[in-house]
């Protein structure tokens, strides 16, 4: 019998702060920044020169050399994080079970490095030199597709795309697949590898990136701080193994926590700017609490989207106040983007990994670079130093270009 309850049993990540969950988590709770001067390309002519880059990642433990050669880094990160998560979950899938296991890994942009390289080849050498691997490298469903091949999972699998909200939308939709009985196991998360000059220049043109901290990169991402001036691009992947409670218990799996809610909404307002009243984000939070039957004062922690842009941090703060009222003062809020930058389509997924670790350890990672309080952002953002708090219930929310919002609610596994 399926009770509709869903649990988290495995975690994996690759990002600038760590090439596995332990490295990532110890950097976060130490308040260490992974943001540096851009090294993937020459950013000297661009107004922003900082990013959160993966340096020295070796895909060979996760993929053979041939596969590495024919995939974009956005897929490689996903395969690495997924294999880590499966190993962490100590899960082995028999052929008979494979149809009950699925993969949903979101991305905001897809295979940016290949889009850029092949475009260059098109204009410098001509169309007949375009690689036959370009299309399979760039399409946004290929992280899910390649992970499904690598893990032999034949259940539901497709791409989830909602810009910076893709990771949490993917985890949420995977949760639904489990709840409604379409699968017993879902490998879910997000991946991105867009720190490439084409995408980077595009975000620069939008004036979305931080430009005043090029000389001190680790200060550039400062969510909720009065001097915040834009986000910092990052790359990587985060993956969770989700299972029905019954499946996890039957195999005696280690259970991190329960995923008890998912909600999604859309601003229907502007292609990039969040809607000023926060109406859709407020309804997203309210639906989340309602669906997971959680009173506002039961929530201990919000792992915020907190991009370090003026509008996002302001409107997110206002929405939290509107939903949680008096209790908003008692919440711990933090944005790990202060350390990791903004991983776009992977953001929600690595933030979910961090949120699960918070429930497990009772440690809330800080919002670093919180130095100048903004009178309009006046909640407890867990400034600068990690804090201990026995967190029973935590929310992770994300907002994507297109006005697409999503939120997840995790709680410690209760009885009954």
């Amino acid at each position, binding site marked *: 019998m399926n009770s509709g309850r869903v649990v988290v049993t495995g975690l994996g990540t690759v990002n600038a702060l760590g090439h596995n969950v332990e490295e990532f988590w110890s950097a976060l709770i130490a308040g260490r920044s992974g943001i540096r001067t851009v090294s993937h390309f020459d950013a000297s002519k661009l107004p922003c020169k900082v990013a959160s880059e993966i340096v020295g990642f070796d895909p060979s433990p996760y993929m053979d*050399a*041939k596969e*590495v050669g*024919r995939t974009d880094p956005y897929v490689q990160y996903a395969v690495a994080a997924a294999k880590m998560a499966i190993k962490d979950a100590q899960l082995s899938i028999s052929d008979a079970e494979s149809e009950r296991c699925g993969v949903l890994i979101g991305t905001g942009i897809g295979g940016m490095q290949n889009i850029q390289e092949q475009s260059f080849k098109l204009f410098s050498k001509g169309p*007949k*030199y375009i*690689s*036959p*691997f370009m299309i*399979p490298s760039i399409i946004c469903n290929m992280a899910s597709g390649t992970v499904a091949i690598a893990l032999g999972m034949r259940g539901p699998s497709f791409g989830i795309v909602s810009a910076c909200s893709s990771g949490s939308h993917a985890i949420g939709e995977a949760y639904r697949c489990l709840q409604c009985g379409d699968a017993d196991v879902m490998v879910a998360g997000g991946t991105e590898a867009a720190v490439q000059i084409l995408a980077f220049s595009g975000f620069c043109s939008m004036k979305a990136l931080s430009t005043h901290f090029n000389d001190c990169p680790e200060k550039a991402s400062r969510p909720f701080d009065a001097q915040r001036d834009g986000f910092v691009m990052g790359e990587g992947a985060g993956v969770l193994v989700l299972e029905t409670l019954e499946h996890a218990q039957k195999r005696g799996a280690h259970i991190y926590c329960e995923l008890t809610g998912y909600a999604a909404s859309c601003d229907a307002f502007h292609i990039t700017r969040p809607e000023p009243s926060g109406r859709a984000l407020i309804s997203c939070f309210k639906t989340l609490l309602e669906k997971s039957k959680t009173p506002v004062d039961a929530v201990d922690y919000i792992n915020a989207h907190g991009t370090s842009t003026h509008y996002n941090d302001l409107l997110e703060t206002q929405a939290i106040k509107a939903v949680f009222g008096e209790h908003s003062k008692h919440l711990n809020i933090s944005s790990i983007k202060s350390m990791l930058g903004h991983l776009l389509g992977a953001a929600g997924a690595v933030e979910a990994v961090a949120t699960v670790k918070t429930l497990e350890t009772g440690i809330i990672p800080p919002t670093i670079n919180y130095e100048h309080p903004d009178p309009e952002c006046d909640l407890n953002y867990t400034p600068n130093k990690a804090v201990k708090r026995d967190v029973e219930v935590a929310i992770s929310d994300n907002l994507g270009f297109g006005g697409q919002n999503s939120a997840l609610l995790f709680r410690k596994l209760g009885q009954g």
Partner: protein
Amino acid sequence: MAENTSNNASDLSIREQVKNVITEVLGVKPEQVTNEASFKDDLGADSLDQVELVMKLEEVFKEKINGEISEKDAEQLTTVGSVIKYIENGGKLA
């Protein structure tokens, strides 16, 4: 005699170059790349790998084969040895 030696040297070089291209494109071990090895059956090349291999061969041996490898010719090039012979023949099937 002198001419023969130089021909042999360049034959060897084509063979080696072809094997290097195959090793690189297909991500296989050099010792797997024998003359008899079939791209599909022995070296695990799928249809996309085969397209990429032809593109790479055209790039490396552009001058020797006088332009490009036609699709019809490419269909016949199923083993390592057949490619070596094709390049040695100046881009003609034997």
